[in-house]
């Protein structure tokens, strides 16, 4: 079922829950992997995904189809992840702990990490990027999204995204050069 049919079903009387469950079935996995690559741990990604989907459920009556459903859901998930990361930093600040150390330990101790040593080092380097650069880098590098698509989701110009990706790429190379 495509997005138009799903939304039409959602607007039918008494079928909101059923239609929303279909939307969750269709997009939750893709959204999860997007969030997971930004947030790091499975527990955090699970919380963010559920919060994003609940937010989407609350905002769906106002969705005017000005953008694609997938793009809209992606935007909610990305914003939710950025808010979560900001909150985590604040929490680390108030508990007087080193946030970057926390993130590094998280990568080291992740029971759901199945990569090799090179991938682990690469993940650590990505987690050291500023949040917004990490979002752009992840969407472009892992998900191979077009700049136009990323621009639609993040509401940032293509030029700014290209610059952001370039900076992120350089930074990762620098970090890797130091750590390897």
């Amino acid at each position, binding site marked *: 079922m495509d997005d138009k049919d799903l939304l039409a079903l959602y607007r039918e009387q008494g079928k909101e829950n059923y239609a929303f469950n279909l939307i969750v079935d269709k997009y939750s996995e893709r959204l999860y992997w997007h969030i997971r690559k930004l947030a790091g741990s499975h527990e955090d990604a699970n919380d963010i995904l559920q919060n994003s989907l609940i937010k989407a459920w609350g905002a769906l009556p106002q969705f005017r189809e000005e953008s694609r459903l997938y793009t809209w859901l992606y935007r909610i998930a990305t914003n939710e992840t950025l808010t979560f990361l900001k*909150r985590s930093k604040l929490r680390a600040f108030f508990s007087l702990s080193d946030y970057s150390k926390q993130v590094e330990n998280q990568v080291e101790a992740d029971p759901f990490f199945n990569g090799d040593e090179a991938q682990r080092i690469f993940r650590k380097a990505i987690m050291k990027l500023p949040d917004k650069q990490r979002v752009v880098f992840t969407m472009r590098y892992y998900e191979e999204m077009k700049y136009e698509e990323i621009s639609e989701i993040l509401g940032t110009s293509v030029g700014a995204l290209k610059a952001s990706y370039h900076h992120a790429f350089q930074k990762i190379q620098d970090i890797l050069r130091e750590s390897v």
Partner: protein
Amino acid sequence: MKKKFDINNPKLKENPFTVPDGYFLEVRSSVSERISTGNRESHSSVWSIAKPQLILVSSFVIIFFIVYGAFSLFSPTVKGPEVTILSSNSQYLEEGFLKTTFVDFFDFEGDTTTSANHKIDSVELITYISENIDIITLASLE
């Protein structure tokens, strides 16, 4: 020897993460459950994060003020009450008891205005001792 890290290595683009078994089947039921119970996301704002620390700091501030208040209330103030007494009993000023400390209050010799009135003549003192020698001896024996 240092190994060169190739960021364009296709292996790095592979997803290194896994999820617990059956996780994606559970997502739908978890979300449905949260929606049906109306359990919306708990809005943990900056305030909710900073709240415990702010409470701790405020309690320290309150304790400090309580201790400070108690000290300033019960510690002996030197100038305050004396000024009141002196202003309400001006005769002390005239009699020359304008003193600031307990020790000075008994230091007659140092007080030029009062020492003349309270000076005991040595002859007078010897006469008194010779007349009352028994009483003094008895007192010292006790």
